[in-house]
């Protein structure tokens, strides 16, 4: 077996393991398990749970996520990263697709400053095509009806 074939075989094996872990997470109703499979989630401290049959994501306050230390406010990039991560988890957990979705573009509107406290987020898959998925995500702190940011994201599968 050539080294190329070997790495291909290894990829297949890894993908199979990945799919099995996700199937197990769904069985246990634990989106957090999927979250923990992505190192970036731990880096910013993102978590997920099921609430009223919908996935709810949250990001507890953490000094390493501060953007403007004099306010202090959460880094805009962290809010963006958190929403992109939430959108990806939404796809991996709720849709039955084989691979890790690839992000094509990401558009973010900042509505209010992210104060130094927990941020919540919810996502909605607006369209699932053969190749492309459109997801929106909304983030809030005190009240779901006064969002701090909204995002729109396209993924290739």
């Amino acid at each position, binding site marked *: 077996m050539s080294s190329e074939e070997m790495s291909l075989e290894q*990829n297949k094996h*890894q*993908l199979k393991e*990945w799919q099995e872990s996700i199937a197990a997470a769904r069985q246990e109703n634990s989106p957090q398990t999927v979250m923990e*499979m*992505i*190192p*970036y989630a*731990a*880096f*910013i401290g993102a978590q997920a749970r099921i609430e009223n049959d919908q996935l709810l994501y949250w990001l507890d*306050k953490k*000094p*390493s*996520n*501060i*953007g*403007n*230390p*004099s*306010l*202090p406010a959460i*880094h*805009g*990039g*962290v809010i*963006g*990263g*958190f929403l*992109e*991560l939430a959108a*990806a988890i939404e796809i991996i957990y709720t849709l039955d697709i084989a691979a*890790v979705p*690839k*992000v*094509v*573009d*990401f*558009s*973010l*509107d*900042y509505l209010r*400053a992210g104060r*130094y*406290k927990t941020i919540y987020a919810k996502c909605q898959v607006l369209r699932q095509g053969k190749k492309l998925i459109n997801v929106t995500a909304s983030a809030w702190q005190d009240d779901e009806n006064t969002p701090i940011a909204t995002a729109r994201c396209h993924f290739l599968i």
Partner: protein
Amino acid sequence: MAFDMTMALFRPALKYAMEKNGHGKTLGLKMTEINRGEINLVFPYKEEVVGNPLTGVVHGGVIVSLLDTACGSAAMTVLNTPAVTPTIDLRLDYMHPAEPHKPIYVEAKVYRQTANVIFCRGLAWQDDKENPIAHCVANFMKVDSKSINFSAIAITQLRRLMPWGKTTDSDKETGK
């Protein structure tokens, strides 16, 4: 080009604020160039920020943070007195995934500013700038707010280092 006094003072302050605080410090980004309306920075690869555990590719969120930081900083440099420039929106196009174990270079430029809005473009690449990982456009508000107090940031940092002057979370929340 004439010597720019404002930039000479602003450059180290901005570098300090972005590299030694909060999320910038955690990411470990380095600002390599700070000029009026133009920022260059570099991010070394980190295992902690991987988004696809099968390939080791960094998460898109990191690219968002890098471009937001670069564009936001570039927006600040066009002001005559350093002030906060809140982001209105940001749009990112991912051309291809970043390769693992390689640094990511980011450049941001202000291409237009009006009375109220600063328009920026940003680019992220690894080996070849002509073949970028991502491109972004981001717009920022010019607001009438008090200028950023860089010395206050430095003092807060110093206090954290001192065992007797630790700031608590509740301190930070009330903005004391």
